[in-house]
């Protein structure tokens, strides 16, 4: 029952956040300097031509009516029509999502795949050589800017060794293998700093758990060191790791903005830059809202998972 009320409150709050966010985003984007109509028609356009296009694009309506038209459309999945491409915004976003989403998933899985074992090894060999060297690597991983790492990857793997493409997206229709290959370097570049942070979290969470009484009990019961570690330790250490994974999603989105530009992947990050440059405001506001909604949603999921695993959180919320 308490869980249920907790979730209702959480969901209501997320919803309010989203509404406020949509207003803020809309307002911010309206003050971007530059006239979309002039950008489409260029320098030689005549004033009457510009006026005709502005009317056609619905740019002459007042602020609030444009906002309501937009947000009511968004609620039924209609994000409007792109100024520059003249196609539905939802179609544009969906097309790009097929690049960005797999990239995010690949980066996230890769970082988890590296980080969990690294964290576990470091914790189980606490203060010994494996621990010290893994921690050293993670320090480095956190300090390396992902765009520089991406440049180095291109230099080594695409230019010198020619193992994989330097950029661009082959397209899923060419084949899943080619698609994954073109996302490989970007995913690695994105995953490295994430993995470093995650490994550190995993390690310290596990060290905390290992010091708990029930671990000693488990060991006393005769379970081997390795079984204790995996059966009890890792499972319990997952709670903080989960939280960080949720937080990282936001960083991941920020990361894709730069990384997609380096590898010229036709994803959401590049669409944002393009929309800013071309003053395709309707695409921009739809995209930003979507990304913010995604972050809010992921945090909601993490909170939910967290609360289910650890009932103490619910109490904290009721205090």
């Amino acid at each position, binding site marked *: 029952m308490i869980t249920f009320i907790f979730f209702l409150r959480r969901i209501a*709050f997320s919803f309010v*956040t989203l509404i*406020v*966010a949509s207003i803020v985003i809309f307002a*911010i*984007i309206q*003050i*971007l*300097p530059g006239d979309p109509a002039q950008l489409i028609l260029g320098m030689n356009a005549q004033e009457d031509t510009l006026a005709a296009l502005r009317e056609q694009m619905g740019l002459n309506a007042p602020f609030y009516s444009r906002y309501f038209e937009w947000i009511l459309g968004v609620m039924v999945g209609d994000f409007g029509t792109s100024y520059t491409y003249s196609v539905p915004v939802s179609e544009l976003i969906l097309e790009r999502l097929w690049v960005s989403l797999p990239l995010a998933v690949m980066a996230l899985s890769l970082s988890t795949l590296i980080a969990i074992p690294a964290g576990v090894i470091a914790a189980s060999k606490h203060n010994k050589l494996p621990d010290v060297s893994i*921690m050293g690597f993670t*320090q*480095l991983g*956190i*300090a*390396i*800017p992902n*765009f*520089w790492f991406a*440049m*180095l990857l291109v*230099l080594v793997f695409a*230019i010198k060794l020619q193992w994989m493409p330097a950029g661009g997206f082959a397209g899923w229709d060419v084949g899943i293998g080619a698609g994954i290959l073109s996302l490989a370097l970007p995913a690695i570049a994105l995953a490295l700093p994430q993995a470093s*942070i995650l490994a*550190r*979290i995993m*390690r*310290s969470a596990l*060290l*905390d758990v290992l010091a708990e009484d029930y671990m000693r009990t488990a060991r006393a019961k005769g379970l081997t060191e390795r079984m204790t570690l995996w059966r009890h330790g890792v499972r319990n250490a997952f709670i903080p790791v989960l939280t960080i994974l949720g937080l990282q999603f*936001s*960083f991941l*989105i*920020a*990361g894709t*903005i*730069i990384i997609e*530009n*380096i590898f010229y992947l036709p994803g959401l990050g590049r669409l*944002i*830059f393009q929309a*800013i440059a071309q003053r395709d405001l309707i695409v921009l506001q739809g995209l*930003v809202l979507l*990304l*913010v909604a995604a*972050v*809010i949603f992921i*945090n909601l999921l993490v909170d939910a998972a967290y609360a289910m695993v650890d009932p103490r959180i619910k109490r904290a919320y009721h205090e």
Partner: protein
Amino acid sequence: MSEFDFQGERETWGDLGQKALKNRSFFIGALITGTVLFMALLSFFWTPFDVTELDIGNKLHWPDTTNWLGTDHFGRDVFSMLMVGARNSIAVAIVAVSIGMAIGVPLGAAAAASRSWGSNLIMRTNDFIFAFPSLLLAVLFTAIFGPSAINAMIAIGIFNIPVFARLAHGGSLALWQREFILSAQTSGKSRVRITIEHIMPNLLNILIVQGTIQFSLGILIEAGLSYLGLGTQPPDPSWGKMLSEAQTMMYFASYLAIFPGIAIVFAVLGLNLLGDGLRDIFDPKLRRGR
């Protein structure tokens, strides 16, 4: 939330100094950070070459005894540019952290002290800003107000506000439960006074540690923004911009892509080690790292 367990009474500076000497992270971190700071300060008085002077005829020279780290596509000395770039990176990060602290800490502490609808509003606004991917808003911000180092400082600073507000809020809440605060309350001191006299001094440690980490993040984000052309503007050199300019030239002048990256890693690594060291020194319970 072990971060907010305040164990025992505050230690004397002497004790802290003793620990600092023994802590390896702190030592290496301080050494690196000191070097970067020194280079940045030195660049105000001396650089091997003038970075505003272009010498097209001398462009793209590989490192040698004259130009220790080579020259860029305008014939400028890369080593000199890195020195001046350090100064710009540090300036942006310092201002951004200061903005975050100056606004975030009072807000968070006030929210913890008052516990009214106002405090709720503050913390909810905080959560709200957190929901925006920071780089995304920084990109929007600079698109609206124009790309410049100042706007990069403000954009990064805005995202430091909720970080410090949360920290100050959580830290203060834990402190408000403590006996010495309760006794101060019974002696009739106002909540504002208690916050200033008792809460703030006790928050100092975690703020310094977080400040160091935000500082290193600030350098990373500034590099990212400059790389995208939204941060420090020419003719001022910046590490991020040097990397973005190197991108088309790294196939025949790879040193252009290597050295600025190393400079960033060096500075960030130093600050992170320093932060870790400080954390260990201030609170031995958290020795095992982040």
